[in-house]
């Protein structure tokens, strides 16, 4: 509370700023509560009915942020009708158009960043890294949408804000921290653009103001388009993007884990650990091998032979390497080109006889220009002949929607029989002919 003397009269009460903040709180608390509550509310539903719970909540929060930005901007302190008659100076007007209201999506983003790690698929993400990333991402979307809604109307604001948010981050929360600088730049740019728009509006320079903002937005469009192009080029290079997952097997009583030279170094070697119980004694065998970079253990061919996938940046071929842990030697079993597009290792499995390697990969979702179907590609590798073939594309495998296969013990999606392999969790069941390396759905 402040007391001031104006024109000889005492005026008691919060200042103009206090009133504007009060109004802001009264208008923002509900969308803020919804934004924070959405991930929590949607989770049990999606857990019950299947689907991708976190990405659903994430999508809902993005939609809410964009819609709120538009609504909030168009009903701002100098919105339509009599509100325009309020004598609000330029600075407070600017301040309460974006910088103050943007706190709601910022808080929502922080909460989302805290929650993301509680979903199994995103356990490796740390809250400290994701909180600012989510906050900046939502703030950038809000700011862009608000500027567009100020200078134009709701429809272009939806197109601009929604398009930008989807193009820059096609539902890959794990990539958000890398884009934080871009988001921060967009926020600053939007604040400057809003300031320029306020100045233009005050002088009734609507047309020049709109042209200026349209030009700025056109430049901004280069970012997502450029990123899409960059992803596309990266995809075309065929680089396999590894998500380092350790491997464990109860059958062979062994595990393979990554080891790093330093805490912040990328993994450079694999460590094999074999545990064998003999009476009351536990016998351990440990072997370590340097693989350099960009490798991923794919499975145990038997207790002492580990299959490793490796692909260096820029390479279009994938190397399947067999590591004999007893002799600590490696040899290349097969190299093949998994596709023109970037691949994510999602799941791999070796047949019990050690002859076939099955692995599911996911095409990069980053590029809008990619031409292969959505979903997962199923590769089958005959390690004896050796040969490799893509058995199926575009598999919308329900079992893997929640993210990379949990690096648990004995991950298995396949039922192996002589000359045949069945993916029983598919609906309909998928049959793989191991002779031709082709698959068919069992309803066909």
């Amino acid at each position, binding site marked *: 509370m402040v007391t001031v003397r*104006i*024109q000889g*009269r005492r*005026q008691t*009460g*919060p*200042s*103009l700023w*206090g*009133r*504007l903040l*009060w*109004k802001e709180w*009264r*208008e923002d608390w509900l969308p803020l509560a919804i934004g924070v509550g959405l991930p929590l509310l949607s989770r049990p539903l999606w857990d019950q009915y299947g689907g991708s719970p976190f990405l659903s909540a994430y999508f809902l929060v993005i939609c809410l942020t964009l819609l709120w930005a538009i609504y909030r901007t168009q009903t701002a302190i100098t*919105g*339509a*009708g*009599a*509100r*325009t*008659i*309020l*004598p*609000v*100076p330029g600075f407070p007007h600017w301040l309460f158009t974006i910088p103050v209201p943007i706190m709601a999506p910022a808080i929502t983003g922080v909460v989302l960043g805290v929650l993301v790690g509680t979903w199994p698929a995103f356990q490796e993400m740390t809250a400290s890294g994701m909180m600012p990333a989510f906050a900046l991402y939502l703030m950038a979307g809000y700011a862009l949408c608000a500027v567009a809604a100020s200078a134009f109307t709701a429809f272009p604001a939806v197109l601009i804000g929604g398009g930008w948010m989807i193009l820059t981050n096609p539902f890959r929360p794990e990539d958000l921290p890398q884009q934080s600088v871009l988001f921060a730049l967009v926020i600053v740019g939007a604040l400057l653009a809003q300031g320029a728009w306020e100045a233009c509006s*005050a*002088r*009734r320079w*609507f047309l020049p103001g709109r042209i200026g903002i349209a030009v700025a937005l056109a430049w901004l469009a280069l970012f997502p388009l450029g990123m899409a192009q960059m992803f596309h080029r990266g995809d075309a290079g065929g680089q396999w993007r590894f998500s380092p997952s350790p491997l464990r097997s109860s059958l062979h009583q062994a595990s393979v884990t990554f080891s790093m030279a330093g805490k912040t170094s990328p993994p450079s070697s694999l460590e094999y650990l074999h545990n064998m119980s003999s009476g009351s004694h536990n016998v351990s065998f440990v072997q370590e091998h340097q693989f350099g970079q960009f490798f991923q253990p794919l499975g145990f061919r038997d207790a002492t032979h580990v299959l490793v996938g490796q692909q260096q940046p820029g390479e279009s071929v994938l190397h399947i390497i067999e590591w004999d842990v007893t002799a600590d030697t490696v040899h290349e079993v097969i190299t093949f080109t998994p596709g023109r597009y970037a691949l994510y290792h999602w799941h791999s499995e070796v047949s019990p006889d050690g002859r076939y390697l099955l692995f599911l990969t996911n095409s990069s979702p980053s590029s809008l220009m990619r031409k292969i179907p959505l979903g997962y590609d199923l590769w089958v590798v005959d390690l004896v002949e050796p040969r490799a073939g893509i058995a199926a594309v575009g598999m919308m495998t329900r079992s893997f929607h929640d993210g990379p296969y949990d690096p648990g013990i004995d991950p298995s999606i396949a039922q192996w029989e002589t000359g045949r392999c069945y993916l029983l969790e598919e609906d309909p069941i998928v049959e793989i002919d191991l002779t031709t390396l082709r698959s068919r759905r069992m309803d066909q």
Partner: protein
Amino acid sequence: MDHVIETKNLTKRFGRTRAVDGLNLAVPRGSVFAFLGRNGAGKTTAIRMLLHLLDKTAGTARVLGLDSVHDTLEIKRRVGFVGDGQLMYDWMTVDEMIWFCKGFYQGWNDAFAAEMKKRLELQGKTKVRALSRGQQAKLALLLAMAYRPELLILDEPTTGLDVVVRRNFLEGVIELIQEEGRTVFFSSHIVHEVERVADWVGIIDNGRLIRCAPLEELKAQVKRLVLTFETTPAGLAKRLPGALSVNVTGRQATAIVSDFSDGTPAAARALGSSRLEVEDLSLEDIFVALVGHPEEA
């Protein structure tokens, strides 16, 4: 004479349409100025340009001696405005709305606002969205007057209100504002209600100001003449000076003239009239005669 509003050749074009066409207006300080015109005559457009809510195409406008474009913030601080269908934060209560708006004006008078709230029978705890149209207009009026503006601009403030509310509203406004000799500038197309409260009248038609004068002067100038002739008169409309309309029935003619003066009876006699009756007109009759199209007025 000191003028609170002055426009010179104020023009607003929307594409090829001239909504306001070279408006030259001068509103004397302390007057209750009625800005009259038919629907679409350009009243609201002109007012919005005065407050810089709308960009002008050409000309100048000064309000309280301030430039309407460059000093818009100061004008908004010193001018009260009530528009047609005024939008407010409908989630606020009446008291919250009053409290919120208070922060924007240095001259806000709490006692006056409280008195107005009581006088206008507004319930403080009622949400704005729950108010009737008439009550919303009253609240808008309270918000526009509580900081004691030097000039109150009302743009069709009574549109949509019933007759009783309309009359109470207008009389209440005038009574309140005139107590301190402030200026009221209000637009309306409901002419007969304006006559009771206005002392100055400006009439706009097709974006042009066709008459601007004190009400009494206007009523003294625009008269209805009933002329009696020996024979049926011909070409009277062209021959009678200042005739706005002429209606001939047999030997009798009824004419409305726009500039009645002491010389008018002599002019009538010169046209052959043997008898002349001069009748006063209501403001509504004057308005209809000036802007034409009586069936639409």
